[in-house]
C-alpha cells in the first residue's frame, strides 16, 4: 500500500478554502479539535489518480505567518514542527482571484519554509466580471510552483488540482525572497549560530515565540553567544520583510495579472470605475465636498442661533440671580461667554463628522485615499502619507502619530512637517465666525458664498500641504518610496449606530478637550481684563466723565466709554497695545492680537477669547457674533471685522502654526527641537506675510 500524502489546506479567511476542502474530500471528512484548544480541526481523505490517497487538513484561515490569534498559531505550530504527525508533505495555498496580491503574502511565507506548495486560485468564475486575466505560465515560473485555477462554485479545476497533488514531488522548494537581504549581518550571525537550521524557520521562532524541535528563543540567546534584537528592532525587521514580500508580489503580478477595469461587469467594479476615474473621480469628490459644506451651513444655522441667544440669555439671567461681586462678574463676563464661544460650534462640528463618518462607513473614503494617492505621487509623496493627511482634518496630533508606519525617514519627516497645514477641526470655529462676519450671505448657483469660502479654505490647506511637500521633497531629496497597500472594501449602507457613535465621540472630544482650555483661559483673561495698574484704571470713571463732560452722552453711552477706557488700561489692554504695532498692518486691533496669542494654546480659543474680552464691563444681553460685528477699527474707523481684515485673519489661521500641542508632538516624533522650531518660524512668518499682503491689497 502506497504512503498517504499529508496535505495542509492553508489560506486567508474568505478565500473559499473550505469549499476546496469539500470538493476534494466529498463526504470523507471528520471534525474535531486541535489538542488542548477549542480551535476546530477538519480532516478528510481525498482519492487521487493511481490509487494514491491524500490526508487533507483544512487549517484555520490566516492572513500571514505572523500569528496574532490562537487560530493562526495553530497553522504556524504545525508548519514549524516536523515531528507532528500531521506535518504536511504538501501545502495547498488557497487564494481568491479578486485579492491575489494580499493572498500571496501568505503563499511566499509558506514557500520560504521549503515545503512543497501548490497555489490554488479560487473563484475563477469571477474573473470575467472583474476584468481580470492571468498569465498562468508566467505566474508559475516566477512564483516557482504549479497553479490550479479553480471555481468550486462551478466545480472547475478540481481534477487538475488532484493531479498536481499526486505529483507533488516534482514541485520546486526554492524560496520566493532572500530573507538575509533585509539585514545581512544579523541573519549571517543567526545562520552561523544554527548552521543546520532553515533560516526562515529560525526567524519565525524568534519573532513569534513558537517552539519547534528543541530550539526556542531562550536557547538562541544562550547558544553561541547569539544576540537577538530588541522587540522594536525585531518588529522593524518584520515590517521590512513584509515590504520585501510585497515588492516581490507586485513585480510578479505586474506582468502575470491584468485588471482591465473597462471590461469589468459587476456593480462594485462599475461604481469603482466611475468613482476612481482619473477625471470623474475628482469631479464627484468635489461635488460631494460642495454638498457637505453647503449642508453644514444650511442645517446648522438654526441650532447655532439658538445656542448663541441661549448663552447670552443665560449670562444675563445669572447676573440677575446672583448678588453683585467679582465672582458674579467672572461667571457672566468670563466663563459663560467663553464657553458659549465653543458650544456654539457643536452643530457644525457634528454635521462635519456625520458626513465624514457616512463616507467612511459606506466605503467611499478608501476610494478617496486611492484617488489622492494618484495625485500625491505627482508631488513626490507616497500613498502612505495620505492617511495622516486625511486624518489631519480632525486633528494634527493623531495624524502626526500615524506617520509612524512610514518606513522611509525623509518621507515621514515631510509628512510630519506639512500635516499642520491641513484644516483641522480646531480651525473650524475661527473660520466659521469670521466667514459669517465678512462674507455676504448671497448664493451662487444655489451654493452660498460662505460655504464656498469654507470649502476654499479646506482646499487651500490641502494644496499648501501638497505644495510644501513638493518643495521639501526637492530640498531633502527622497531616493526610495515606501509602498502603500489599501484594500477597497465593498460598498455598504452605513450603520446608523456606528455613525451616531462616531459623531458623538468626536464632538465630545472636541468640546471637552477645548472646553477645559477655554475655561482656564477665560478665567485668566477675565482677571487680566478686569483689573489694571495705576490711576488710569482705578479712576477710569472720573477721567472718562471729565473727558466727555462737554458732550451730551446718554447714561448708557457714558457707561460704554468708561468700560472701554478701563479695558484699554487693564493688564490685558496694556499687553495688547504693546503688540498692536506688529499686528495693525494686518488690519487687527489689540483685542484680536490677544486672541491670536491666547489661541496659540489651541486655535479654537480665538473665539472664546474675543467673547470674553468683549463681554468684560458690558451689561448688554448680546450674542458673540453681534458683539464682534459691532467692533470699530480704532485707526481706520468702520467695522473692525471687514472684508479685508477678515480675509487677512482667515489666511493667517490657514497658514500659522497656532498649536503648541502639535509642536510638542513633532518634537517627540522627530526627537529634536530643530524641526518644530523651524516649522513654527516658517509657518508663522509665511502666515504673517500672506495676511499682510491680503489686507494691504483689499483694504
Amino acid at each position, binding site marked *: 500500500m502506497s504512503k498517504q500524502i499529508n496535505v495542509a489546506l492553508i489560506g486567508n479567511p474568505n478565500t473559499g478554502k473550505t469549499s476546496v476542502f469539500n470538493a476534494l474530500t466529498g463526504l470523507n471528512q471528520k471534525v474535531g479539535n486541535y489538542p488542548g484548544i477549542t480551535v476546530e480541526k477538519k480532516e478528510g481523505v481525498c482519492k487521487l489518480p493511481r490509487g494514491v490517497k491524500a490526508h487533507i487538513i483544512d487549517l484555520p484561515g490566516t492572513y500571514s505567518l505572523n500569528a496574532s490569534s490562537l487560530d493562526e498559531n495553530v497553522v504556524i505550530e504545525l508548519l514549524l514542527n516536523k515531528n507532528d504527525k500531521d506535518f504536511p508533505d504538501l501545502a495547498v495555498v488557497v487564494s481568491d482571484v479578486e485579492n491575489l496580491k494580499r493572498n500571496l503574502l501568505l503563499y511566499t511565507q509558506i514557500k520560504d519554509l521549503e515545503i512543497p506548495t501548490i497555489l490554488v486560485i479560487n473563484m475563477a468564475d469571477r474573473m470575467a466580471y472583474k476584468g481580470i486575466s492571468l498569465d498562468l505560465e508566467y505566474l508559475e515560473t516566477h512564483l516557482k510552483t504549479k497553479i490550479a485555477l479553480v471555481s468550486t462554485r462551478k466545480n472547475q479545476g478540481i481534477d487538475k488540482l488532484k493531479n498536481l497533488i499526486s505529483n507533488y514531488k516534482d514541485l520546486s522548494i526554492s524560496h520566493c525572497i532572500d530573507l538575509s537581504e533585509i539585514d545581512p549581518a544579523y541573519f549571517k550571525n543567526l545562520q552561523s549560530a544554527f548552521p543546520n537550521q532553515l533560516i526562515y524557520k529560525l526567524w519565525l521562532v524568534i519573532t513569534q515565540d513558537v517552539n519547534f524541535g528543541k530550539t526556542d528563543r531562550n536557547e538562541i540567546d544562550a547558544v553561541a553567544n547569539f544576540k537577538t534584537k530588541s522587540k522594536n528592532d525585531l518588529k522593524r525587521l518584520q515590517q521590512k520583510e513584509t515590504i520585501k514580500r510585497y515588492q516581490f508580489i507586485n513585480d510578479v503580478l505586474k506582468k502575470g495579472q491584468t485588471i482591465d477595469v473597462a471590461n469589468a461587469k459587476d456593480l462594485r467594479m462599475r461604481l469603482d470605475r466611475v468613482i476612481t476615474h482619473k477625471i470623474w473621480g475628482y469631479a464627484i469628490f468635489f461635488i460631494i465636498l460642495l454638498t457637505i459644506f453647503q449642508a453644514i451651513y444650511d442645517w446648522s444655522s438654526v441650532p447655532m442661533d439658538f445656542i448663541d441667544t441661549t448663552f447670552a440669555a443665560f449670562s444675563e439671567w445669572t447676573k440677575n440671580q446672583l448678588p453683585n461681586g*467679582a465672582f458674579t462678574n467672572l461667571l457672566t463676563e468670563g466663563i459663560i461667554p467663553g464657553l458659549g464661544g465653543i458650544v456654539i460650534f457643536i452643530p457644525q462640528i457634528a454635521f462635519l463628522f456625520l458626513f465624514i463618518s457616512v463616507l467612511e462607513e459606506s466605503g467611499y473614503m478608501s476610494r478617496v485615499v486611492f484617488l489622492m494617492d494618484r495625485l500625491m505621487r505627482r508631488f513626490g509623496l507616497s500613498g502612505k502619507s495620505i492617511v495622516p493627511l486625511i486624518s489631519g482634518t480632525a486633528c494634527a496630533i493623531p495624524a502626526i502619530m500615524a506617520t509612524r508606519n512610514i518606513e522611509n525617514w525623509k518621507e515621514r519627516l515631510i509628512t510630519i512637517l506639512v500635516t499642520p497645514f491641513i484644516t483641522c477641526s480646531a480651525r473650524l470655529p475661527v473660520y466659521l465666525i469670521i466667514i459669517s462676519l465678512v462674507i455676504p450671505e448671497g448664493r451662487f448657483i444655489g451654493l452660498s458664498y460662505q460655504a464656498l469660502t469654507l470649502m476654499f479654505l479646506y482646499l487651500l490647506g490641502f494644496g499648501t500641504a501638497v505644495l510644501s511637500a513638493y518643495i521639501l521633497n526637492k530640498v531633502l531629496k527622497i531616493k526610495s518610496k515606501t509602498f502603500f497597500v489599501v484594500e477597497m472594501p465593498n460598498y455598504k449602507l452605513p450603520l446608523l449606530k456606528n455613525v451616531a457613535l462616531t459623531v458623538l465621540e468626536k464632538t465630545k472630544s472636541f468640546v471637552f478637550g*477645548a472646553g477645559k*482650555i477655554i475655561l482656564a483661559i477665560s478665567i485668566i483673561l477675565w482677571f487680566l481684563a478686569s483689573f489694571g495698574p495705576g490711576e488710569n484704571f482705578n479712576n477710569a470713571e472720573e477721567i472718562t466723565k471729565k473727558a466727555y463732560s462737554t458732550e451730551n452722552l446718554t447714561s448708557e453711552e457714558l457707561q460704554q466709554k468708561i468700560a472701554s477706557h478701563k479695558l484699554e488700561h487693564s493688564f490685558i489692554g496694556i499687553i495688547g497695545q504693546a503688540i498692536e504695532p506688529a499686528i495693525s498692518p494686518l488690519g487687527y486691533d489689540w483685542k484680536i492680537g490677544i486672541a491670536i496669542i491666547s489661541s496659540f494654546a489651541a486655535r479654537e480659543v480665538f473665539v472664546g477669547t474675543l467673547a470674553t474680552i468683549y463681554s468684560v464691563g458690558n451689561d448688554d444681553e448680546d450674542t458673540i457674533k453681534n458683539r464682534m460685528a459691532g467692533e470699530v477699527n480704532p485707526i481706520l474707523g468702520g467695522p473692525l471685522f471687514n472684508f479685508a481684515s477678515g480675509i487677512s485673519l482667515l489666511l493667517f489661521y490657514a497658514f500659522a502654526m497656532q498649536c503648541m500641542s502639535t509642536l510638542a508632538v513633532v518634537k517627540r516624533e522627530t526627537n529634536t527641537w530643530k524641526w518644530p522650531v523651524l516649522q513654527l518660524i516658517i509657518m508663522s512668518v509665511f502666515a504673517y506675510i500672506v495676511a499682510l499682503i491680503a489686507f494691504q491689497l483689499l483694504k
Partner: protein
Amino acid sequence: MNTIIQNILVVIAIILALGFFIKKLFLKNQKSKKECGGGDNCGCH
C-alpha cells in the same frame, strides 16, 4: 454671598486656571503617552 466670599471664589478659580496651565505645560508628556495614538482624545484642543 458677600464680597469676601466672592473674592475668595475668584482667587480659587484663578489658582485652578493657572494650575491647569502649569500642569499642561510641564506634565504634558505623561498625558500624551497615555492617550495619544488612539482616538482624538490626545489633549490637543
